[in-house]
Structure formats: structure tokens, C-alpha cells
């Protein structure tokens, strides 16, 4: 049996929820798929006060923002939320195969918004598969959702915002953070977060990285070494730290498998975290049924994810002939302005450079999987 819907949104993080909320008074049928058994995506484990723009809830804790969106969503009767529902793959005839609570469903939709978020990046070093090595998001999940700590002594790799924030959360949970290690010469994250860590006496080593992990079946320690100006390890500079946990906060990579399967033109854009789909300024990809929003479109932050979700949602429902089209057009313009404002200034520089490479209007770089012209 095939389920039909006007709009299908894959991923119930801030981007996906924001997209669905736009369809409130549209009269369209909407299905939201979420792999986990609750909505909120990465936001539910973010217990710190948010960085980002003042108008867009900076200062509020991430988990609180997620709850508020979810409550709003529950009011909508044209929306079906499927939890524990993973989109497995895209098939011809525009069918998405979904594993929903251990049974298979086929869903056919007029428009699909992919808001699947991102996956943690890995580093290559000997023994990087030992138990005791985690992505930073995993450590957050364990501590902040389940109230379980990953170990007793941790080394954090990466001094971007995520590495700094999770280090602080580890300290709050009573775990010893032995050091924060950063390959670059400078700390990448905001100074407020770095200062919070330094004040507690945790050293932040820049220009260093992991040489290898060691341990018999599980992490027992880590060897660090210094990097030269070509990012090569300097022999003789090694030192060992006895730790039972290594936390990697070395960035995220957009989850775009479904878009690749759907034949969307992709491009490798380091500024956005990896392979991302080309899109027009309404976030429509080169497959006319597919939109992309949030970290799946390029790793950024939650405010951008929410605004992109709104933009993709509005664009999709306008195409589907939603009621109140006029006022939705106005709303769409406002959202675009907010996104531009958010990405202004030096903080948005990297994102702006990345976005130039994924515009479908001619500026696109050479892509890897080109199916369509």
C-alpha cells in the first residue's frame, strides 16, 4: 500500500519542525518523519543558553526552543507525525521507502523537504575505533538525555563552539576534562565559551592533535603531538595522557543520501561541511520535487536551520497551491531578509562563501554526481 501526501518532511529537528509549522492553515496534508522517538533533533540535548541572533532566541536553552515548537505542532490536525520512522531510500515513481516502528511503508508525496541534519565527522588515527571514542554529539546525548557520563577522564579534540560547549557540559556533569586539543593555531569557538573552560583550569592546547589512541580493547590513553605549519606531526613532540574517553568535536557533515538518490545535483563545499545539493534561493534542489533545509543543506546553526525550514516550507506549500498565498509570499520575503541578516558580517563569511558555490543560478562549482543538466 502506498500512502499519499501533499508534503513530506524528512527529519524532525528544528528545520523540519519549522517547515511543517508553515503548513498550519494551508489545507494541505503533511507527513513529518522522525527517526528518533521524539522530535527536536540536536536541539533537545542542548542545555546551554544559545549563541546566535538576539531576535531569534539567543539566550534561550536549546531544549526549551524545541519543546515550544513541538507544542505548536501538536495543535495542527492536517499534520501526521511519524516517530521511529526512518526514510530508508528513494525509489522511482517518486516513492520514499520508510521503516516506521519496524514495518515498511511507501510514501508518495508531491513535495519533499529533506531536513535530516548532519553526522559527526571522524578523524583518522591508529585505534580510532576503540570503545571510549565518541563524537561530541554522542557525549551530549548520553549526558543530557540519559544522565550517564561517558567516562572519568576525557580529552576533547576540537576547540570550536561544539568542543568548548561539550567540555563545559562534561565539567558540569562532574567529569574531569584533562585537556582540549585544537589542531589550528587559534581557538575556533567564541571567546565566552573558551573563557568558561579556561577559568576552570582546563588547558586548551593549540597547534596539536591526536597521534594515536591506545588501550587493550578500550581507550586507556592518547598520544598527542605538535603540528608544524604544514599540519604535519613533529616527531619527538609526542606526549601521552591517561584518559578513558576521547571526544571528537571536529565538525559535522550534511546527511544528504536521499537527495543523492533522488538525482539532485551535488557539490563538494568544504565551507558547508561536505557534499550538499545545489539549490535556488527558495531552497529547491535540481529535482523539482525536493527541497533541502537546515544542517542537511550546509552545517550552520539552529537559527539558520529554523529560518531555512520556514523558507522551504513556505516555498513548497506555495507551489502546492496553499490558501492565503498572498500573505505567505510576504512572509517568505521576511524570512529571506532574516536569513541574510543572520549571515551578515565576519561570522557569516564562511557560510556566504559556501552558499555562492551551491546556487543553481550558474555559480555552481563542478559537481560529483551530476544526473541532470
Amino acid at each position: 500500500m502506498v500512502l499519499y501526501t501533499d508534503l513530506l518532511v524528512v527529519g524532525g529537528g528544528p528545520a523540519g519542525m519549522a517547515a511543517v509549522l508553515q503548513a498550519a492553515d494551508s489545507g494541505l496534508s503533511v507527513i513529518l518523519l522522525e527517526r528518533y522517538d521524539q522530535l527536536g533533533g540536536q536541539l533537545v540535548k542542548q542545555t546551554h543558553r544559545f549563541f546566535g541572533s538576539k531576535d531569534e532566541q539567543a539566550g534561550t536553552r536549546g531544549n526549551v526552543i524545541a519543546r515550544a515548537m513541538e507544542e505548536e505542532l501538536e495543535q495542527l490536525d492536517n499534520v501526521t507525525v511519524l516517530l521511529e520512522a526512518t526514510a530508508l531510500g528513494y525509489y522511482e515513481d517518486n516513492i520514499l521507502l520508510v521503516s516506521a516502528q519496524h514495518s515498511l511503508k511507501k510514501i508518495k508525496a508531491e513535495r519533499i523537504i529533506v531536513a535530516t541534519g548532519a553526522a559527526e565527522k571522524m578523524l583518522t588515527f591508529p585505534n580510532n575505533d576503540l570503545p571510549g571514542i565518541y563524537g561530541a554529539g554522542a557525549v551530549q546525548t548520553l549526558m543530557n538525555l540519559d544522565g550517564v557520563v561517558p567516562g572519568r577522564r576525557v580529552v576533547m579534540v576540537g576547540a570550536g563552539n561544539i568542543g568548548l560547549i561539550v567540555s563545559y557540559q562534561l565539567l558540569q556533569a562532574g567529569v574531569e576534562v584533562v585537556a582540549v586539543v585544537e589542531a589550528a593555531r587559534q581557538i575556533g569557538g567564541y571567546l565566552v565559551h573558551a573563557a568558561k573552560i579556561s577559568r576552570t583550569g582546563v588547558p586548551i592546547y593549540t597547534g596539536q592533535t591526536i597521534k594515536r589512541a591506545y588501550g587493550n580493547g578500550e581507550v586507556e590513553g592518547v598520544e598527542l603531538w605538535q603540528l608544524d605549519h604544514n599540519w604535519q606531526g613533529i616527531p619527538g613532540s609526542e606526549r601521552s595522557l591517561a584518559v578513558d574517553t576521547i571526544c571528537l568535536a571536529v565538525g559535522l557533515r550534511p546527511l544528504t543520501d536521499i537527495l543523492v538518490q533522488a538525482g539532485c545535483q551535488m557539490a563538494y563545499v568544504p565551507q558547508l561541511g561536505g557534499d550538499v545539493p545545489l539549490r535556488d534561493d527558495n531552497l529547491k534542489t535540481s529535482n523539482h520535487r525536493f527541497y533541502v533545509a537546515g544542517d542537511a543543506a550546509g552545517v550552520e546553526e539552529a537559527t539558520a536551520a529554523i529560518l531555512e525550514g520556514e523558507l522551504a516550507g513556505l516555498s513548497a506549500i506555495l507551489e502546492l497551491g496553499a490558501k492565503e498565498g498572498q500573505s505567505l509570499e510576504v512572509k517568505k520575503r521576511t524570512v529571506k531578509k532574516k536569513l541574510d541578516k543572520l549571515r551578515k558580517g565576519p561570522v557569516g563569511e564562511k557560510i556566504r562563501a559556501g552558499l555562492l558555490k551551491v546556487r543553481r543560478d550558474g555559480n555552481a562549482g563542478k559537481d560529483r554526481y551530476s544526473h541532470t543538466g
Partner: protein
Amino acid sequence: MRIKEHPVLEFKRGKMIKFNYNGRELTAYEGETVAAALHAAGIKTLRKSTEFQRHRGLFCAIGNCSSCMMEVNGVPNVKTCLTRVTEGMVVAEQRGKGDLGALY
């Protein structure tokens, strides 16, 4: 290990339940994931790699990476980071790639 006191968070833990891990009885709080319950009991090795038998543990905790797959109630390749532990659940380290033969 479990967090007992936290400056920001309060953990609403479910009731205590028992489950079985490789023939041993362990306790957990209802509602937490299998991977978290095992971590709380100090168990970090969740499986071995199929070719070289290298130990593998939790890595991403959001269902992306497959490093945490185990056999749960006889079903192989279950992502224990997404699966909630229940009373009497039988959790076991999986051998090799897992076999669905007995089930289908």
C-alpha cells in the same frame, strides 16, 4: 556511571527494571536507551568487528554510524543507541553479521 547531581538538568528517571546482558542480569531505568543502560553499568564494548574482531562501542548515539549494533530479543543488528530498554529484554553481543534465519 550515572550523573547524580547536575547544576542545570534534572533527570526524570523511570522505574528500575531488570534486563539480561550476555546471560547476566543488569538493572536499568525504564525509558533509557540500551546503550546508555550498558554504559551506566560500565560496559563500553558493544560488539566486535566482523573481520578482525576489534572492539566497538557507542560512537554517534543518533543512529547514523552502526557502531552500537547488538542482538536484542533475538533480532540482530539493532541500533542500541535508539532502542529503549524494557523489563526482561534480552541483549547480547552479536556474532558476525547476524542471522535472521530463526525469525523469518
